[in-house]
């Protein structure tokens, strides 16, 4: 069997204000359906051990995460090798329900942006209020990064995990790198 390859082969950019790292391959399953319905909630629990997150939040347990994408969509994030089994369990649990689960792992790229100025790097590129009082660990945000759609959340303070389409992985990596250039810190979030 061929080996999975992430979009940028784990390219890394290290600057003293932030570090950009392509991580992956990462397992990702899109699940669409009525998030308030029993079958969808039960499927997430049985397949991934996850409950449906609050609106615009990402919930993590035992290495698996589930992110609120829209009123009828969640994204399950897991180990790349676990996707096939998890998808099987999801589809099994969703039999007869009006819902769809699909493996989107290879359609996306994932980056970690970390370091003392990680918030600033993100704030330069996304039209989101990233003040520490407004955007906190556990929140999930779909938005744009410069000119392309993206989503991110903070697994912990001073660290962002960014998801974008695989086709724009190089663009997102480059633009994050520009925003993290040495000497480009603004200090707007300094406490």
């Amino acid at each position, binding site marked *: 069997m061929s080996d999975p390859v992430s979009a940028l082969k784990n390219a890394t950019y290290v600057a003293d204000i932030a570090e950009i790292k392509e991580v992956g391959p990462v397992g990702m399953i899109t699940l669409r359906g009525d998030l308030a319905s029993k079958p969808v909630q039960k499927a997430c629990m049985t397949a991934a051990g996850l409950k449906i997150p609050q*609106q*615009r939040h990402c919930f993590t347990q035992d290495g698996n995460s589930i992110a609120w*994408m*829209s*009123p009828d969509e969640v994204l399950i994030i897991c180990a790349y090798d676990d996707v096939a089994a998890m998808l099987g369990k999801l589809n099994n649990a969703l039999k007869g329900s009006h819902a769809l689960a699909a493996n989107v792992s290879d359609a996306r790229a994932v980056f970690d942006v970390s370091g003392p100025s990680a918030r600033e790097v993100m704030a330069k590129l996304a*039209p*989101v209020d990233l003040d520490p009082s407004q955007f906190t660990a556990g929140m999930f*945000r*779909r*938005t*744009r990064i410069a000119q392309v*759609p*993206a989503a991110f959340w903070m697994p912990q303070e001073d660290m962002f995990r960014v998801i974008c389409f695989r086709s724009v992985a190089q663009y997102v990596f480059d633009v994050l790198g520009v925003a993290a250039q040495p000497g480009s810190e603004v200090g707007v979030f300094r406490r």
Partner: protein
Amino acid sequence: MLIVSCPNCGITAEETEFHAHGEAHITRHTVGSSDDQMETYLFMRKNPKGVHFERWRHQNGCGKWFHMARDTMTLEVFGTYSAQTYNPPKDLLAEIDAKRPGWRDVS
């Protein structure tokens, strides 16, 4: 720049996260319509300076559609509301009546 609140996901952000998709609450004539109806749908718009009702989509966000009432002259956003409706909500219309008396005469 417009500051827009999406009624589907609760995000408030500036307009570049969203995309406008034209006038709302019009009949989109299609297959089987007369030439006159098609012309009305495609070209005959009042386009008043002031109060507009539009369809918008949270393009770089939750991806959902919604409606927005705004003033094209002052860029004030009066409000956003569900895409699943044929008419603006009554309380929003009352608010616009209070802020822009006479707007109904020109639109």
